[in-house]
């Protein structure tokens, strides 16, 4: 009985967590796992290659 009550109590909260718009969006938007992370994008981005003499003062 206690477990059932607990489950009934938590169900709405669980439902909101699983089916909120941002959760749905995140599920469809796995791309955003990388594309919203500054650190990840910095790691993945390759700057264009410079010529041998470019960048020298």
């Amino acid at each position: 009985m206690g477990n059932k009550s607990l489950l009934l109590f938590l169900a709405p909260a669980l439902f909101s967590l699983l089916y909120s718009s941002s959760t749905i969006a995140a599920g469809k938007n796995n791309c955003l796992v990388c594309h919203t992370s500054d650190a990840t994008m910095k790691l993945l981005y390759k700057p264009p290659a410079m010529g041998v003499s470019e960048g020298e003062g």
Partner: protein
Amino acid sequence: MYKGYLVDKNLVAKDPHFAMGCTFCHKGNENGGAKESAHKDLVKRPSDNLKTCGMCHRQIADTYGKSLHYTTIGQRQGVMKRFSPTELKQFDEKVFQQSCRSCHASCGGCHVKAPPVGGIGLGLIQGHKFVKKDEGKTCAFCHGGRVYPEYTGEYGGKPDVHYQKGMLCMDCHKKSDMHGDGSTYLSKQDVKDRPACTNCHSKLGQEAKLTTRAAHTRHKGKVTCYGCHASAEYRQCYNCHLDTGSTAKPGFLLGLNPRDRKTLTTLRLIPTVRDSFKHAGVAMSNFDSLPNYWDTPAHNIRKRTDRTRSCDACHTDKTGLLTRETLVEKGSKANEGLIYNIKPIPINK
């Protein structure tokens, strides 16, 4: 720069464009575990295909497909008379479609990601927000060689007074100018309701100050607003070749409007030369049919300029006026038709 691809996560829940998921527009593989697999078959610029945005913004997509920003046909129209029919066909295939047309603006180029110029781009305008406008990151990029820096004063002259008053591009160039109005125009000159000074400054000839009133009345229909109110030199481009580009330097030119030979206006040198398209094997057998100078609405307007302060600037000193001696070397024979022999002001009048 990686920040150019960084999406603002706060947009995801709020912006309906994200509701269908990234791959709805961009394709690719959202289940790819690594960058390469995730980007397989990625569409970088989905709005290049107007049907993408047109799924929801049907009417805008339909009209935009006919607008000059999309078709860029004005660039072709401006030069086509120089070609024979055979040369024009070659120009269309080898130059216009591959070079000129690559500059057309997609929906995303104005609303999502700043357009790259010469391979260099700012990236997402505001973290993939679908912005209504952000002239400094959009117009300023494509039109950053000439108009925009002249307008802001970055090119070296004083800023345009409209810029100082807080006006940006869209304050004059309205949404219908950008999106189109459903008509297929071949030139910006033909666009209905395009910007005109008199749209706001409508009471010319009614000024309280006598000299202003006289100047406006006397020059009406003979000199454009820019002829007196363009305040500084603007960029003149020279000697353009398909493979090497062109050079540029500041200059101020007054001459007859090639489109209306009764009117004196500011002119800009357009850098097409006789062998501009030689690299693509395209000649211009009718090169001399068009001049090298075209009327330009110099975007460095000020109320007081050398020419508004003194009639002598034009009528005596002839400052900036096109002459036979100052015409571009090896230019079109049509250039001479733009020279205006300005008369001194009679003393008794």
